[in-house]
């Protein structure tokens, strides 16, 4: 395949409090074998050579497992290719001369730091509120020391696949974090290690999620469709069940949570 020329419309915003705008760029000599981020690197090298400020964007592992890259490409978080992060999106999925809009995640809880980089520490605070296991479970156990049914193990693994990239929030019309929090709650609720703090965890994480200013769920499933790990929204249903049990039957921790501050 021959190299491509693309028209880019990139969100440029110098800082968190400065208004941003879409700026047109031309990406020349783009190989269809490049990843989307490599294409941006090429554009940035051109900008640097011209003495302009490079486009800021987040990236790290480049193999779709770290959850750092976060671009809304042509109106879809991580781009139109299913089950991939934007670093694993290759330029062969675009055609020569195509106009590509590139925007950051947009949510009140994810303020723009610069250009395409957003601050996702709201997710970290949700995890810090309860997405952990306090008991010391030691090092990695030998296989089958703790027998867990195959179906349960599979469900937990599907939820644990969440890389915390935030595409679910970016795709949701309400900027809801329900899929992220649902996956994190599910993954621990299904495992014996997470059983002890199961309900306290659900209640604490949901409270933190609401306090961060995410919206609520409209059950459209756009999150599931853009999730690079294809985590199903049945995780949201499980979160609702965990949370309902937490607040209806397990009141003891509630008193602790409200008085420990």
């Amino acid at each position, binding site marked *: 395949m021959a190299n491509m020329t693309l028209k880019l419309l990139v969100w440029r915003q110098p800082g968190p409090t400065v208004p941003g705008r879409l700026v047109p760029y031309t990406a020349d000599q783009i190989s269809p074998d490049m990843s989307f981020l490599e294409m941006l690197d090429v554009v940035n090298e051109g900008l640097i050579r011209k003495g302009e400020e490079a486009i800021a964007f987040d990236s790290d592992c480049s193999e779709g497992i770290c959850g750092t890259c976060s671009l809304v490409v042509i109106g879809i978080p991580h781009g139109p290719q299913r089950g991939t992060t934007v670093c694993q999106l290759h330029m062969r999925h675009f055609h020569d001369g195509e106009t590509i809009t590139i925007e950051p995640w947009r949510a009140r809880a994810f303020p723009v730091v610069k250009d395409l980089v957003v601050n996702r520490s709201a997710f970290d605070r949700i995890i810090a509120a309860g997405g952990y296991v306090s008991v010391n479970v030691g090092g990695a156990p030998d296989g089958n020391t703790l027998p867990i049914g195959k179906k349960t193990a599979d469900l937990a693994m599907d939820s644990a696949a969440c890389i915390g990239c935030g595409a679910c929030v970016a795709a949701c*019309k309400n900027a809801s974090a329900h899929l992220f929090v649902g996956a994190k709650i599910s993954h621990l609720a299904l495992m014996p290690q997470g059983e002890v703090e199961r309900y306290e965890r659900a209640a604490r994480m949901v409270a933190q999620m609401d306090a961060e200013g995410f919206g609520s769920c409209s059950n459209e*499933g756009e999150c599931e469709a853009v999730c690079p790990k294809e985590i199903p929204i049945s995780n949201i249903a499980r979160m609702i069940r965990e949370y309902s049990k937490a607040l209806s039957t397990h009141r003891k921790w509630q008193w602790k949570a409200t008085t420990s501050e």
Partner: protein
Amino acid sequence: MPPQPKIGQSSIGTKIVISISSFFLILFLLLHLAGNVLVFFGPATFNGYSHALIANPLLIPIEIILAVIFLIHIYKTIRMWVRNRGARPVPYARKEWAHHTSRKSFSSTTMILSGAVILLFVVIHLETFKFGPDYLVAGSGQVRDLYRLEMEIFSNPLTVAFYALVMLLIGSHLWHGVSSAFQSLGADSPRWKRTFRVGGRLIAIIIAVGFIVIPIWVYFAGGRS
């Protein structure tokens, strides 16, 4: 750690309240449709049924409960909608539907609008029928001739068109709403997903088609007298 909100105030609790209230409203619609279908059996059956309802002493308390549920549904939805709008202050310059496994549709994106039209319709509808002209007819004593009223109202093609349009919107509201209400209660699993979605759409179709057929039948057949 932020203080724990009351269950009804949290994002999840709000959805639970909205979905439980919607179940009562769906049940009401199904019962309402079942009663209305009696119009096909002529004035005696229909007026007999409506008189049995009006004469029942439980009617007023049930109406009040239903009205409260309706208002709770509206209040919680609007509050949630406002909060959800605030969750994304800067809109996307370009946003596409993800398709794939997503169930985003015309119906799911217009819930607040179809809901607003339904509210407006309920006011007009109550004014037309419940608080409409009191034609009387001999039944068990003097009873309201709602059959005659219905025949008169639906002899106007504009009224028939208005009702049909609103019923399509109610169908649209339920198309997404019924299965969504189950999901909001946490009733979803890979095994039941299809049942809830298909079942919800079936209920939407039954209600919309049922309520559309009646005014159209009245307009063209003019009822039986």
